[in-house]
């Protein structure tokens, strides 16, 4: 780890200016990802701008009936919030499925969104990695890639985004509030992340110095009927092999609206829009859930060692949608 200077930023505008104007300056939130990466040498900032004190640690009700979650809210507080548990259970479940009690107490909502991939080659500075060092190559394709992407990858990078929380937020159409050089703005979560394409080092559309200040959840009545299912190699305390966040609005046995997002299978939280389209207006049945999953997975381009994820995702999409539909009277699964 290289030496670094440390400063506590007093307000968002200062923090933004500090990071914009000082080369090698980055924001410090809970530190659970940044400090880890600094010890690995993957991140080597010269200045840490501590924003934990200036970010809101509160979740407020918005005028539209949704929630505005301060970027400084710790993961554990988010999951424990009674409004989140009652109105957006998929989000509480997603957060609780991640990491450990200790890490959830430390991690901030803002930091969680920006955590880096767990790809073993990205994490090892002694090996090539197009994301860390553009153009150096991707050893994962011929090497260890069981945990990597089946959707959204490119010949340059198959890394996956490891956040569970972000998958639920993607399903809920979350909007990210950002403070930048030009002042505050909002970005739909789906537009904040970038697919790797030919530039896997560019993971977001954020600019240097952009500080996430809050995440807004639009009101969604049927989000009360939502769930997160995470599959991992250990019963707990492990990154996902595949996960699904879903919310289902069913009336008279017909799907009025489906929200489906997939985790651990793509470089960003994967909103399964094709599946949602197939399912809208169709019976809430196992057969249609399967067709929806198949439609989404038709675009899957797995690697030899992770092809099983296609079957796994299909199975858990069908299972979770079935549970959600069965939770309503007259549902079939």
């Amino acid at each position, binding site marked *: *780890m290289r*030496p670094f200077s440390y400063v506590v930023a007093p307000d968002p505008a200062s923090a933004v200016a500090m990071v914009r104007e000082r080369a090698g300056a980055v924001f410090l939130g809970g530190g659970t990802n940044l400090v880890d990466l600094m010890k690995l*040498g993957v991140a080597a900032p010269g200045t840490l701008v501590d924003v934990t004190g200036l970010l809101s640690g509160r979740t407020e009700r918005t005028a539209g009936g949704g929630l505005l979650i301060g970027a400084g809210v710790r993961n554990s507080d988010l999951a424990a919030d009674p409004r989140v548990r009652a109105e957006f259970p998929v989000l509480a479940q997603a957060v609780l499925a991640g990491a450990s009690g200790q890490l959830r107490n430390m991690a901030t909502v803002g930091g969680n969104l920006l955590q880096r991939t767990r790809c073993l*080659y990205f994490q090892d500075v002694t090996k090539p990695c197009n994301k860390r060092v553009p153009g150096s190559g991707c050893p994962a394709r011929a090497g*260890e890639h069981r945990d990597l992407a089946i959707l959204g990858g490119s010949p340059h990078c198959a890394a996956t985004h490891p956040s569970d929380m972000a998958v639920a937020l993607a399903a809920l159409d979350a909007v990210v509030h950002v403070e930048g050089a030009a002042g505050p703005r909002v970005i739909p979560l789906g537009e904040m992340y970038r697919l790797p394409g030919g530039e896997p080092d560019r993971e977001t559309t954020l600019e240097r110095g952009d500080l996430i200040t809050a995440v807004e959840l639009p009101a969604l009545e049927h989000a009360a009927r939502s769930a997160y299912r995470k599959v991992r*190699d*250990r019963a707990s305390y492990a990154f996902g092999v595949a996960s699904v966040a879903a919310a289902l609005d069913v009336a008279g046995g017909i799907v009025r609206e489906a929200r489906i997002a997939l985790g651990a299978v793509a470089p960003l939280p994967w909103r399964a829009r094709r599946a949602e389209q197939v399912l809208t207006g169709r019976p809430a049945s196992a057969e249609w859930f399967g067709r929806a999953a198949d439609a989404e997975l038709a675009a899957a381009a797995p690697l030899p060692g992770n092809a099983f994820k296609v079957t796994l995702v299909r*199975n*858990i999409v*069908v299972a979770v949608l079935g549970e959600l539909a069965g939770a309503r009277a007259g549902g079939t699964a």
Partner: protein
Amino acid sequence: MTARVDGPDKVTGRARYAFEHHPDGVAYAWAVTSVIAKGAIRSVDAAQALALPGVLAVITPDNAPRLPGTGDPELALFQSRAVAYRGQFVAAVVAGTLETARDAASRVVISYEPEAHDVTLTAGHPGLYKPDFVNPRYQTDTAAGDFDGAFAAAAVRVDATYRTPAEHNHPMEPHAAVAAWHDDTLTVYDSTQGPSRTAGQIAVVFGLEPGQVRVIAEHVGGGFGAKGMPRPNVILAAMAARVTGRPVKCAVTRPQMFAVTGHRAPSIQRVRLGAAPDGRLTALCHDVVGQTSTLKEFTEQSAVATRHMYAAPHRRTTHRVVRLDVPTPSWMRAPGECPGMFALESAMDELAEACRIDPVELRIRNEPAVHPETGQPFSSRHLTACLREGAARFGWAGRDPAPGARRDGRWLTGTGVAASTYPARAMASQARVTVSQAGRYEVSIAAADIGTGARTALLAVAAEALGVPAAAIGLRIGDSALPPAMIAGGSMGTASWTWAVIKACRALRDQVRDRDGAVPPGGLTADADTAADVSALPAHARYSFGAQFAEVRVDADTGEVRVPRLLGVFAAGRIISPAQARSQLIGGMTMGLSMALHEESAMDPEFGDYPNHDLAGYHLAAHADVQDIDAVWIDEEEPELGPAGAKGIGEVGIVGTAAAIAGAVYHATGIRVRDLPIRLDKLLTRSEP
């Protein structure tokens, strides 16, 4: 139940482990590790590292002191430019702070001359050869009768190949040492399973008399075999202390542990069983293929347990090994027995199915009266009783053997059974017992408590042998300045140490009795050495045995495996400290569960290392993976292995667990997984609509 005597120190944080000793002026050493798997160092540029404030030295093959004793290539630190595996220690930084040492280590620039490396074990690898012996000193191959003919003629045959991956011991405390020189004597606080052995080996490396090295290991945070011998960090700490003139601490980082602290090498094991229709074995063959490094030969003795488990007139066991450009393997809990019994017991499960015989009955039917290969009588063997007791407790009666036939909602359920075994041995050790005129006793022996509860057991036997309460006895262990003793390994610690301690205590008791109880002002001392007693052990077959039962649930949608119940029933001679013994046995079974479902160090052919080299990538069973595990034992008299009659229970717990779980998974799903770990992708099938 007697509570563990070091419990209060451990729950309060008072217990100090190696790295936690902080001599005045102590500096920190951080190793630089190779990034090639084979080749040589061309040059080392330490300029950037040396320029950092607080860096005291950068030690490289160019400037490292010459070590007189280079017989162990793993400890011949920086004596050559050759690189034998990726992750090998090739240089080191010594600095005043931990942070500076770590930073400077990353700035040492090494250029290499790499050579093409071979890190892939295959069953037909052209480099496989027959080693002179297998770990620790067993015969490489054995044979009796005509296996090939008998197998071909057998009514029922099983021929299957099983694979276990590389696994790492991963004690929670990384290897660590603090070394300080005082003139020509060296004191090392080390995390070691064997202070006496470690002190002796360090002395050899540095060309010292044994008395010039003192190793202190009061508390050790687990070992599981990885701390049975000194590792490069100990030599580095001592060398760095010599070079800088200051005490030096050196801990191995968790990622570094994957290369330099030993591990269990992968195995490819072919087991062939030929039986009559009633399940009685006529032919039995276990062929093991393994790997070692190019530095040291270590051949895991995976077929050795097969030699004594079951009767069969026609038999063969073989071991072949190939030297690859990989880290040097060594002991990991139950070396040999652990991977070997996964293969043998899985094959027995397949035979039970092929014969349509209950798997518990099958084993009982093949129980040998004497050691099947040597003809030696067993000193004590109660495998059958363990199987029967376990079956009764587990609710095995009436089990429907049909696979894939039970479902509870989305869970497929099944049960499995496997046998356990581990050799029961003792090695020579010495002990000293003193009593003061005031009636205070002190027992000294260079044993090590690595979590086994050795302290508690030794106090218990000393109290019994002396005929005084344990509170009147002070016990000193964990220091090579004390009477030399066997390492805490091979499940031999308790048997070896209690033998010496009881012998010394009885001698002291005799002295006290001879003086009619009057202890002179200078106190009384009795020393014991069990070397002659151990050599005089009759040539009998001595083992612990056990039976392990598993219940599993497999998620039909995802292939995730859960183990709601594990039961082990063991016969291991006298159990000295029941609470700690139960903890050890359950601990072994927990490690067996972890082996079955989670653990794999996957070698990357391109780089020659394990890319999953941390605890997020290498999964140890977490709390949520472990449900009900119980271990019980049946009373057993072990008449030969020393006055305590204890056989050692540190390792038998891990033996057989993985096979019981794999058998239960087969029973649940109809899918026979022969290569560990049993991960969900091996069980995943597309859900029915």
